[in-house]
């Protein structure tokens, strides 16, 4: 074949291969802990995740970042090991250990080579059940986190997200994307032990094990590590509502040396488990889910305003939001805002074309197995079933439900959840230059890097 006969059209696809979300088992220990096992023999590795669903708590509302701080402190000493010995044990196994806290949960995960699985799971149990939360390490962590917070205040992306969530969620615990200087200064060992005592409940916990270990062995080891975990006394939970939309308004975070403007445009949307979530996700894919979506095609490929423009649903347990964003050249901020609003209006006003809809459905369904190659990714999907209270077959039927979305449904999702007339606009950049650009969009408030209003 010579180059002149190069085919002018792409080849027709072959026959699609079968893919099923990996099967997993679920067992319950006597103390209520559920053990979910997904055996995957492809790799000689195992990933174990302990998920404790806390629900919204008054403690987290009072001390933003409390569960995150506790998650960090789990690594800082147990009755048999110091913080340094824990760090040694993790690194010697070549393991990855992650402890995360949010408003909805506390989670600890470890990934290890299979020969270290028993040691790794034992260590995970030790951190969750036997962390001593020593005072000296607590003070060290407090100082470390305070310094890290000061450093984050020099990052425009962080400043934008922080202001956006604070304004969007008001008194709701989701308003804080991080601890604050006040909460870091105030948090005490008593806060941590009380929170742990109330929330670390085996009946609200799941242990998810994915990798080259079988069900029987995994459950037996789970029993030996976590079998003695006792349930705490029940405590009060918090009911909180995200505040109603305050109408369209703009916040400027003054970043005096900015060479770009970081733009975020946000509305309230749906939590992860909401029946609208799947069609909403399809709608978002049309709008800004990837490099093939409208925002990217317009603001980058057409206009060259930015390295990338996207929209993302942040769907949590109790509430959710939709955030569109881009970092744009400061001289094109005005044009970028115009194009953002053009796209936010267009997806509401025009029915999405059949072909465009089919494209995003193909993307979301095709990418699904590709995003499940790693055992950590499989584990994260099983974790999400439990965190968001989804039916057991959620991932089995996921692609069918993506494909079931209709153009009418997509437009309805846009009309319901993309509300440019009520949007919160946040821009990190030079306040003096930004103010006149934002005034046409609604009332403007200027904040400094700490979030305090500038008059």
């Amino acid at each position, binding site marked *: 074949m010579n180059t002149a006969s190069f085919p002018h059209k792409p080849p027709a696809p072959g026959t699609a291969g079968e893919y099923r979300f990996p099967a997993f088992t679920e067992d319950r220990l006597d103390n209520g802990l559920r053990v979910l096992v997904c055996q995957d023999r492809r790799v000689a590795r195992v990933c174990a995740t302990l998920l404790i669903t806390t629900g919204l708590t008054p403690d987290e509302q009072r001390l933003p970042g409390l569960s995150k701080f506790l998650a960090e402190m789990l690594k800082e000493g147990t009755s048999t090991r110091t913080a340094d010995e824990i760090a040694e044990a993790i690194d010697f196994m070549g393991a990855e250990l992650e402890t995360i806290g949010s408003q909805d949960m506390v989670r600890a995960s470890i990934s290890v*080579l299979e020969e270290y699985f028993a040691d790794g799971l034992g260590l995970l149990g030790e951190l969750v059940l036997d962390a001593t939360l020593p005072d000296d390490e607590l003070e060290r962590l407090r100082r470390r986190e305070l310094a890290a917070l000061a*450093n984050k205040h020099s990052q425009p992306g962080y400043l934008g997200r922080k202001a956006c969530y604070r304004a969007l969620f008001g008194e709701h615990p989701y308003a804080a994307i991080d601890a604050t200087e006040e909460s870091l200064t105030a948090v005490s060992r008593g806060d941590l032990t009380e929170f742990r005592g109330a929330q670390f409940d085996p009946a609200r916990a799941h242990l998810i094990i994915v990798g080259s270990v079988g069900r029987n062995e995994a459950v037996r080891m789970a029993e030996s590590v976590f079998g003695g975990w006792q349930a705490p006394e029940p405590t009060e939970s918090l009911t909180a509502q995200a505040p109603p939309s305050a109408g369209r308004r703009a916040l400027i975070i003054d970043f005096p040396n900015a060479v770009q403007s970081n733009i975020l445009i946000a509305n309230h949307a749906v939590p992860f488990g909401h029946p609208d979530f799947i069609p909403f996700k399809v709608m978002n894919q049309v709008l800004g889910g990837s490099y*093939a979506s409208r925002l990217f095609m317009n603001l980058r490929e057409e206009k*060259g305003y930015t390295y990338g423009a996207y929209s993302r649903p942040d769907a949590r347990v109790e509430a959710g939001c939709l955030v569109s964003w881009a970092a744009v050249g400061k001289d094109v901020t005005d044009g970028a805002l115009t194009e953002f609003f053009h796209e936010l209006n267009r997806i509401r006003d025009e029915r999405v074309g059949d072909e465009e809809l089919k*494209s995003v459905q193909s993307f979301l369904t095709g990418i699904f197995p590709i995003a499940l190659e790693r055992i950590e990714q499989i584990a994260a999907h099983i974790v999400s079933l439990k965190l968001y209270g989804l039916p057991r077959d959620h991932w089995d039927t996921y692609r069918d439900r993506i494909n079931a979305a209709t153009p009418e449904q997509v437009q309805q999702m846009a009309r319901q959840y993309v509300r440019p007339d009520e949007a919160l606009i946040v821009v990190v950049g030079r306040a003096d230059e930004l103010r006149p650009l934002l005034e046409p969009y609604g009332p403007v408030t200027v904040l400094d890097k700490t979030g305090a209003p500038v008059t």
Partner: protein
Amino acid sequence: MAAMKEAIDFQHHVLDNGLRVVLSPNTATPCVAVAVYYDVGSRNEMPGRSGFAHLFEHMMFQGSEHAAKTEHMKLISNAGGDLNGSTGEECTNYFETVPSHQLGLALWLEADRMRALNVTKENFENQRATVKEERRQSVDNQPYGPARLRIRELALENWAFGHDGFGSIADLDAATVEDAQAFYNLHYAPNNAVLTIAGDIDTDDALAQARRYFEAIPANKPPPSPDTTEPPQTAEKHERLDDRHAAMPGFWLAYHAPERRTPDTYPLLLAQRILLHGRSSRLYKSLIKQHEAAIRCMGFVEFVRGPGLFTIWTISKGDDNEQCKTLIESELRRLADGGVSEYEVQKAKNLIKAQYLDQLQTNLGRAMVLAEFTLYDGEPALANTELDRYLAVSADDIQRVARKYFTVQNRTTVEAIPAPPATQGGKAG
């Protein structure tokens, strides 16, 4: 082989036009990764055109003879796949992960842009603007960004390796669409590339498809090799930069590192893990835990076909960087003078093994590993044996390279000092 329980299954073919094709079947998921690695990176740029290899990478997504602007991205996305590309010092890679029944589409698109890219003035201007924003977002609007670029320039005398791949805004502004066409003609030829296909494939079918789409693309005269010489450093270098975004002082520290796959690279990588990986590492324990002198201390070592660098990045907690610099120096001296224990050597080996096996979990991970060994070393089989070289390192080897490389005269430091905001129209940007 010793370290890997199961070797990566692969075949290596060379097409008539010189394109090296590596096929690696794995049926775990009905997906396949396609990676095309070109032997061109920022080291092949000409003075006055810094950042061009990366700018050109963007042009590869702007349409070819049979796929219009943005169509490459749309076709892959519509097929349920994902894609990206990246530019390094010594290679530019493009990759797709697609459902395996769409392998033909990925190969057709890669072949079309290898044989007939559509370089237009309009697309070039659009991507020039995009790349400038990428640089601003990643470097100029971030604390410690400019210092990160400066350390390379200052540490290396060699221009090819000693300038950053983002390029300066002035050089990006000076680039022309004619430069882009010339760059394409010079570097983007099958004999200057490796194609790797890893995943759910029938190897005979995949090879037939590779031949169908790529074999007729004519080979090119090999491009000139970049200058890889670097004079030995004879004295310490140091510079201070004003950083108008940083809230606290920080610095980058660099030592010259040996060339890729030479005897010193293996112990030096283990030294990097012992010093810098995890909370049990020597620098974390000293700077962050014990002395609370830093809020961040990270380090990397790069082994390239030319002069590389061992770099450490630190953000200091105090008013200046002096305590952190002293602590790092004393830890590096302790490594050189006192060596390491067998336990630490084993720990570093366990880590390197775990990280390598982790990378091999995905089709794309395997495709990338195979492509790199093929492009840089002409030997994809190294993907199955190279780990053994790391596992053979002794404590003495590590002490020897620590003595050799962590010397004052081999050191370069760039400090980023928080500066007050510029006035309007000032220097920032």
